[in-house]
């Protein structure tokens, strides 16, 4: 009996120890060998970024020229003054605008500059005096009586980052400085909104992140016209020659690009890389047959049919094989002799002056009629035709500005905005673009990185390699830096970091290694595990149950004995 008892004890011990070995060695081994590799991701920081709190700071320098301030006002006007404005865009996006105004009086040289006969000259000489940094605004306040600005104009905005503001009439009467500032501040804010950013610009830039309430059709069209922010753009000019038999076209695209497009792109260089190509496509037809209008003795394309023009042509354009940047297409269509002249009509059935149209986020098409360049029929075909590039490039340049988002929203009344000159872009326009592009980049990068984190969190089978983890963390650092630089008002650096962030986030999101999903359906897993686990675990479980029940019985026995 004693030996039997010892045997049973030994058996129980053996069963227990096997169970322990299985739990301590087998289960971790199984776990370790079947797990997918997932590198560590900065999830907390990503979640912080998901709640985006952007603060945009602008340095505004307000310079009072002689005759605008009373001496006692001059003493009391504070040196700096900060004005903040918070806007809640949606649940996890808040925007704060911060205008840091510095007040000072003009020095002698600036006074001299302001005495120039015209505002444009004043603007130029003020610029030579001091170059203000990227993203800042200088407002010169001139007295009511000044002749620098023409009648009826209160604010003048030049090519650089300076504006000239006429002191309003009621303030020429001296009052205390608080009233003066209270009077000036809304006007200065208005100037700054034109020259750097307005709330509508910024919310439009956030469209990737925030679903906007559907506004009017026009504003939607406006917001969708320009290209998304991207680190580079490919600009392609294509000359479409549908009938090389009757005319041979020559265009000096190299010269035209050099003199018209390149200055603008040089100016935009901090924003993105641009590359320019051109090609000539022969036998490229439009998708619609233009209708002959006998009253005009010309062929016409209606605004409704313009949508169908692009598709057949686009098949011939060819995508850029060497890069994956978005392509801006500019097509010059020279209709053949039998369908010429060809005019584009707008919705009101009026001919469009430029004879060109554009398609949002795609490019522009211009029709160039050459029928008057044909001889009187006696010249042998094909006729050689040189295209007037000045006319063409004027249209394309305007379209390019639209596509890139250099749109000047109509200035408020009383504002005089100097039209853009040879460079095609004023400094403050560039700043404006940079503000919205930076915000857009930050918004896009945060959405990309948060959705990536969500995806990886939801699907546990995706392998996360180290390079993806490093891309993600570099995105996060760049984003944090960009946000910080925006807060500090360093627009240039902010843009730079936001570009880095967007590049890194795209690389992480589109990394091909994420596609290698180690995915096994559950039924297959069970089919493979059952032959091993079932015969192994059942005896262990049974003996454990037996041991437990025996122990319970013994305890009961002991209790009854005690009783």
């Amino acid at each position: 009996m004693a030996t039997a008892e010892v045997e049973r004890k030994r058996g129980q011990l053996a069963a227990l120890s096997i169970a322990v070995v299985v739990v301590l060695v087998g289960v971790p081994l199984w776990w370790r060998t079947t797990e997918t590799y997932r590198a560590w991701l900065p999830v907390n920081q990503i979640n912080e970024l998901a709640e985006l709190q952007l603060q945009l700071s602008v340095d505004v320098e307000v310079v009072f020229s002689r005759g605008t301030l009373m001496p006692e006002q001059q003493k009391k006007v504070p040196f700096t003054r900060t004005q903040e404005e918070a806007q809640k865009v949606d649940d996890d996006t808040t925007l704060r605008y911060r205008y840091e105004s510095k007040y000072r009086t003009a020095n002698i040289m600036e006074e001299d500059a302001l005495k120039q006969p015209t505002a444009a000259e004043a603007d130029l000489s003020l610029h030579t005096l001091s170059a203000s940094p990227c993203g800042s605004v200088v407002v010169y306040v001139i007295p009511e009586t000044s002749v620098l600005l023409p009648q009826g104009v209160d604010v003048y905005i030049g090519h650089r980052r300076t504006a000239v503001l006429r002191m309003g009439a009621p303030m020429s009467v001296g009052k205390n400085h608080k009233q003066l500032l209270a009077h000036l501040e809304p006007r200065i804010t208005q100037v700054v909104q034109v020259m750097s950013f307005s709330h509508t610009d910024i919310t439009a830039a956030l469209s990737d992140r925030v679903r906007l309430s559907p506004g009017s059709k026009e504003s939607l069209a406006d917001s969708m016209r320009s290209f998304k922010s991207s680190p580079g753009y490919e600009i392609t000019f294509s000359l479409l020659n549908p009938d090389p038999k009757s005319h041979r076209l020559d265009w000096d695209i190299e010269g035209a690009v050099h003199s018209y497009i390149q200055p603008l792109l040089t100016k935009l260089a901090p924003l993105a890389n641009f590359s320019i190509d051109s090609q000539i496509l022969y036998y490229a037809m439009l998708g619609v047959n233009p209708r002959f209008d006998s009253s005009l003795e010309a062929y016409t394309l209606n605004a409704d049919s313009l949508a169908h023009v692009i598709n057949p042509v686009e098949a011939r354009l060819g995508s850029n094989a060497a890069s994956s940047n978005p392509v801006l297409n500019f097509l010059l269509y020279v209709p053949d002799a039998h369908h010429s002249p060809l005019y584009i009509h707008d919705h009101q059935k009026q001919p469009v002056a430029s004879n060109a149209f554009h398609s949002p986020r795609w490019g522009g098409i211009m029709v160039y009629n050459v029928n008057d360049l044909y001889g009187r029929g006696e010249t042998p075909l094909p006729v050689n035709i040189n295209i007037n590039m000045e006319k063409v490039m004027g249209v394309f340049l305007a379209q390019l500005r639209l596509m890139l988002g250099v749109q000047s929203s109509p200035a408020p009344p009383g504002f005089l905005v100097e039209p853009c000159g040879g460079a095609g872009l004023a400094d403050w326009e560039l700043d404006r673009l940079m503000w919205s592009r930076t915000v857009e980049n930050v918004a896009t990068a945060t959405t990309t990185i948060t959705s990536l984190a969500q995806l990886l969190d939801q699907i546990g089978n995706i392998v996360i390699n180290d390079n993806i983890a490093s891309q993600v963390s570099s995105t996060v650092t760049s984003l944090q830096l960009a946000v910080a630089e925006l807060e500090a008002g360093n627009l240039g650096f902010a843009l730079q970091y936001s570009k880095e962030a967007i590049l890194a986030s795209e690389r992480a999101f589109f990394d091909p290694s994420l596609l290698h999903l180690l995915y096994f359906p559950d039924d297959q897993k069970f089919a493979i595990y059952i032959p091993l686990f079932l015969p192994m675990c059942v005896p262990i479980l049974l003996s454990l149950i037996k041991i437990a029940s025996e122990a319970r019985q013994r305890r009961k026995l002991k209790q009854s004995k005690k009783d």
Partner: protein
Amino acid sequence: MAARRCLGLWFFLITLCVVSTGADVLHTTPVTGTESSAAGTETVVARELPEAPSDPGEHTAAEPTREGEQNDRTRGGEQTLGQPTREEEQEQEKTREGEQTPAQPTREEEEEEEEQEQTRGEEEFTREEEEEELTREEEELTTEEEELTREEEEQTREEEELTTEEEELTTEEEELTREEEEQTREEEEEQQTTAQQEEQTKRWEATELEEEHVHDAAVPPLAGDPPAADPPSPPPSKDDFQEELVIRPLHSGDIYASFQFRTVWDADFMGDQKVSHYRLFPKSLGQVITKFSVRELHISFTQGYWRTMQWGQPYLPSPPGAELWVWFQDTVTDVDGTWKELTNVLSGIFCASLNFIDSTNTVQPSASFKPLGIGNVTDHSFLRYATLPREIVCTENLTPWKKLLPCGSKAGLSVLLKSEKLFHSTFHSQAVHVRPVCQDPQCRTTSMELRQTLNVVFDLHTSGQGKREWSLFKMFSRTLTEACPLASSSKVYVDVTDNPQGEQFELSPATPLLTQAVVLGDRRTYSVYDLTQQASFGSSRSLNMLLRWKNSHNNVVPPVMLRPLLHSERYVAGYGLQAGEIHTLIYNHHPYRAFPVLLLSAVPWYLRLYIHTLTVSSKGKDNRPSYIHYQPSKDRERPHLLEMLLQLPPNSVTEVTVEFERALLKWTEYTPDPNHGFYVGSSVISALVPSVVAMDTNSTLDRPLFSSFFPCKEEASYFMRVYTEPLLVNLPTPDFSMPYNVICLTCTVVAVGYGSLYNLLTRTFQVDEPSPGLAKRIANVIRRFRGVPLL
């Protein structure tokens, strides 16, 4: 062996001597009475004459033409003439021995010449370079040796021994061949004094492209050329586009159509200035070339296999499937990375699976693929070569190819390219070749050349309904109505060499223009239709050429086709799924000339080649390759690369065999249809084949496109590439439910073992009364029955 070769050559020269006197009379017959053409001839000769005596090869090369012409251009006659009788052979041997000694002093001259050639950057097969490569190769081998595993090391050592032996052999051979050449020189110098005058006419013939008006002899020869048709455009155009279609009736009754479109652009892709404004050159390709710093790019897609023995040589050879080879500029630092990106981009452009090109099927040939354009690059680390024999070519590859043409498929010859007909053919091959070429003979400036070629063979029975009658409409279901307005030249050539008097077939509409071109070492005659001339289209305003054979009903066998001088076969031998043997047969059908060929084969890593079993034999004897470059494979990393230089004896079959073992793949590495087998790409044979006629070495001269693709460096021989069949090899293929079965089985075994162990450990054992055995129980029953006490 060498002696016999000398003998053959010797005999050849003598026959030439005999024949040459009567030849030029025959040659001039088509040109009789054309004063102006004779004048043209003389000017050409005057220009080229000073150079003439210095070239040893040209006389021998030029003369066979006459012989050929005398025999009505059929080679059959030439062959019978070429067979030496026994007595003659002996006689010649005597004379040869007599003349061999005076030939010796000219050796120095010969060497000087060789030096000159080298400075000119001549063809890869010249002896000097061969030696260079040999030494370089040896260096490579020694460095490689250290890396190799022990087994491979042994192999390479063997191989090295082999090559050193070879070297000795080649030097011997070389001497012999030099002697031969000297003899020919001697011979020629003798001839030269007598035959100076004939020489001149002959040279003119070599430059070809004399366009003769058969009907209207008074018209000066070059009047029909396209430049006259072009209205003079004011600015000198920087790019130029030409298109051309060659139709060659094949002896099997099939018909071969070869399109070539050539765009030449004076843009400097190699410079620092970025090229970005495109006119005729396709933008997509130009961007690729610029971005990846490509010097030369050759890509071909082929469906079907070119049957050399039935069809003769193609104008542009290509292997079945896809082939891509690229020379990068020497500014590229990471060649492998660039290659990978490039293949991916090209895969997108041509809608092909070129993205499957990776390191396991890419090789760097050391000698076989020299740049075809200008630039004497020798560092083959900038070269990448890959084939995809599995690639199926279809419409989706044709459409992007057509998009690269300036006229698309809207005008010109490209209207014929309709996929429903093109792919209803026995053989279809389309290719794109980009290379830098010289603009002028002095090669001061270079330009980029893009050649798009498309070759198609229509079958007599499937496309032709068994009737030997072909027309453009029957082939392509379209006719020609105009030339591409952008093309400076647009021509259709029909090969009428076998049909000089119209006795074989009838060609309508008849064309007054005839031209001769030297292509693939043979002089061919072509009828030309110039599409830039309105007259070509006739009154119906459309051109629908019709070739109708006269003997279409009665089965008169057409004249025997010339046997191609070089062709090859390849097959896998052996049985079972473990080992095998690759046999490559290379045929030299030249009756009396031996010539060297370069054989390249790239074999995937899963066929493990045993290089020590490599044997090369011709005519039953061992044929030692004079140069071997072997790069062993690495599993899942790179394929085997075997290149060797072989001397093919005249009229012989050379057999190259190598044994291999099939590797077991991982289960994810099998293709979706593993029992179909695994493809091994075609071997490539590159050769300088001795030419029957003098080849034209001036590459900038205006020539038909089909005859000007491979640059020709010397007149006596022409370059040719032959692709063997791809192989289909069965690998040991597992049952793919096996992994699951194995898992289940092992799990069960483990479970059973574990179960018994567990039982042993946990059960308690008790001593039990053993129950009585069966016999005892039966006995007890009986005992009880009997009343006897139990046991």
